[in-house]
């Protein structure tokens, strides 16, 4: 009997799965869950950081409708589909996932999932947005490397309302090193009141074989500038490149041979050749006996 019920249950699940393209059903009691975290700037900001690391790759930038072309597509956070959800529904969907949407129940803490909900809520027309993104400003960035003191010196300006460039104070500048597969962030500094900043490069930063580093300096979000790339700055430690081909071997070296294998091989070969040597010695003896009998 129980088996039969199970079977029916599985069948229903299966049918439900087929119909899922349209509607994503959330249990009634989950729908009405209250968000335990407060809807404020700090929580929305944290939610945004979480969104940028975990969700942006599929859902894209807020309001730009540039999510991955999956079927069904991951909706934009500002879209009606997204916002039609209650907070409880959002939480449920983030926690459990479906199809192309991963489940985050085990990777993101409950509080943080609620913060994500807060972040999504920031774009709900019914809500007063707490995180307002100002349109990006045009900025200028100058940077140079002081090789003897191993420092990066930065000067930033921003375009004012009248089109003139003003000193950019208190802006976050990120420093990274250009590597083969993208930029490796190494640190951040804030510009001072004169729009200047100094960043001391960590002593243990590793460059290429000569210790040269391509330093990339860029302004944070909200500014339009090209990053400054300081090529071949002698500020890093030389990279120790292990000699990959020490000997003329392919794939692996003799150091990796298992002992049992080595012993079996040497034992068998040694045994055979000892016996051969013994036989050759017999041939020598045949010759000697013949000689003695002359």
């Amino acid at each position: 009997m129980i088996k039969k019920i199970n079977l029916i249950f599985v069948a229903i699940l299966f049918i439900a799965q087929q119909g899922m393209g349209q509607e994503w059903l959330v249990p009634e009691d989950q729908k009405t869950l209250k968000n335990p975290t407060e809807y404020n700037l700090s929580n929305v900001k944290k939610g945004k950081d979480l969104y940028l690391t975990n969700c942006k790759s599929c859902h894209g930038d807020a309001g730009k409708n540039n999510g991955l072309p999956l079927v069904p597509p991951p909706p934009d956070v500002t879209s009606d589909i997204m916002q039609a959800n209650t907070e409880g529904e959002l939480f449920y969907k983030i926690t459990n996932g479906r199809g192309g949407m991963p489940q985050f129940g085990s990777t993101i803490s409950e509080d943080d999932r609620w913060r994500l909900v807060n972040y999504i809520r920031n774009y709900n027309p019914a809500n007063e947005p707490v995180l307002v993104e100002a349109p990006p400003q045009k900025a200028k960035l100058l940077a140079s490397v002081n090789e003897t003191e191993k420092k990066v010196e930065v000067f930033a300006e921003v375009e004012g309302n009248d089109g003139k460039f003003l000193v950019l104070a208190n802006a976050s500048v990120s420093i990274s090193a250009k590597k083969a597969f993208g930029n490796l962030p190494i640190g951040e500094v804030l510009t001072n009141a004169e729009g200047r900043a100094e960043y001391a490069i960590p002593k243990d930063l590793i460059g290429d074989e000569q210790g040269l580093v391509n330093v990339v300096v860029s302004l944070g979000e909200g500014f339009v500038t090209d990053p400054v790339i300081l090529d071949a700055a002698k500020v890093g430690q030389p990279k120790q490149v292990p000699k990959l081909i020490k000997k003329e071997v392919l794939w692996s070296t003799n150091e990796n041979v298992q002992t049992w294998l080595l012993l079996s091989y040497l034992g068998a070969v040694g045994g055979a050749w000892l016996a051969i040597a013994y036989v050759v010695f017999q041939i020598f003896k045949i010759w000697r006996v013949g000689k003695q009998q002359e």
Partner: protein
Amino acid sequence: MEKSKSPEESRKLLDKITFDLTRSIVKRDELTNFWYFFLIMFAAVGLWGWFIQIRDGLGVTGMRDYVSWGMYIANFVFFVAVSLIGFLLSSALHLLKINWAKPISRVAEQVAIAAVALAGIIIVMDMGRPDRLLNVFIHGRFASPILWDVTVVTTYLTISILLFYIPLIPDLALLRDKGTDDIPKWKMKVYTLLALGWKGSAEQYKLVYHAMRILMLLILPVGLSIHTVTSWLFAATLRSGWDTTILGPYFVAGAFVAGAAAVVIVMYAYRQRYNLKDYFEDLHFDYMGKLLVFVCLVYLYFNINEFLVPAYKMKTAEGIHLRNLFTGNFSVMFWLAQTFGLILPILLMLCKYFRKPLPLTIISVFVLIASWVKRYIIVIPTLEHPFLPVQNVPDHFKHYSPTSIEVMITLFSFMAALLIITVLAKMFPVITIWEYAEDKGIEKEIISEPKN
């Protein structure tokens, strides 16, 4: 062994045996010259092919990234297989005191030496840079089946040469002492040199027996290893068709089939050409036929295991491979090899008539060709289905067909093998005279008597 005869009778009989068995050494007519010419000419053509391959690189072969082992390796496996008969006939049967095999053991040793020597040469010919051959030894890795194979092939070659040489010593002395004038002078010099001052004393015979016994015992594990290790070159991979535990014994059984067939053919050639009907008797062919049926049956049994079990399961990759063999690209080769190389020969050779010299030899030719084809379809189909993503690969990478250079070089290997056998037969008696004479009841003293 027959009863001992009177000295007079013995001497006469020994003279006849010696005369008959030196015929191969003495005889030289138009056919000999033509045969040499034929072998050397085709071998030279093959060498020319090899020269082109060394000059232009392995690109002249059909081997590409995926099918990186082609006809050469198939041919190599074939020759290793053939060489294994030396182990069976001149050691295993000898140790089991099976007397009928004694006169055949030198033929078996000739075949073994020629085959294993060529196996070694073919490997060198398969190398893009043969000048780097020594690197295999200098930089070889002990974990690599390739190193094991190189070692075991050299070891087996050494043992085979010794096993050919040691029973030959008394014969060489006999030729040195009793050889007729029609043996060329330089050959006599070689005999004198190689006979090591043989006197035929009891002590020397004891040494010969002792050394032979050691070698025969030694060749048992080494002979088994040579083909088992060759099979590990394949079985130690994860590829479908090779990744089976049965491959070692499967190869060994297949080797006996190929080798026994080769020995029958060589035996028949000697019997006809050197008029040795009284030595390679109908009885020997009958026994060889029975031996061949026996090893074929064993091989058939392994074949059934090798194909039926995976065919029952048809695992994805294995299934592709098997379909390719049973009904796909290689099905013609596969079924021809199984029918003409295994099933029909077994059925025929069960009848006494087909174990007579000529029919048996014809069957052996089919068996030998089929075992070559068999090696080809062991090596190539598996490589055409690598476990790698093979999208966007030039089409000719996925399929292999040998080029004319490869055919030429393979031809060289056959010619060179035949050449080695021919030279051995022209240099030394094809049957161990002293052993044979002793079996016919002739005393050792009479054998080692100087010529009167």
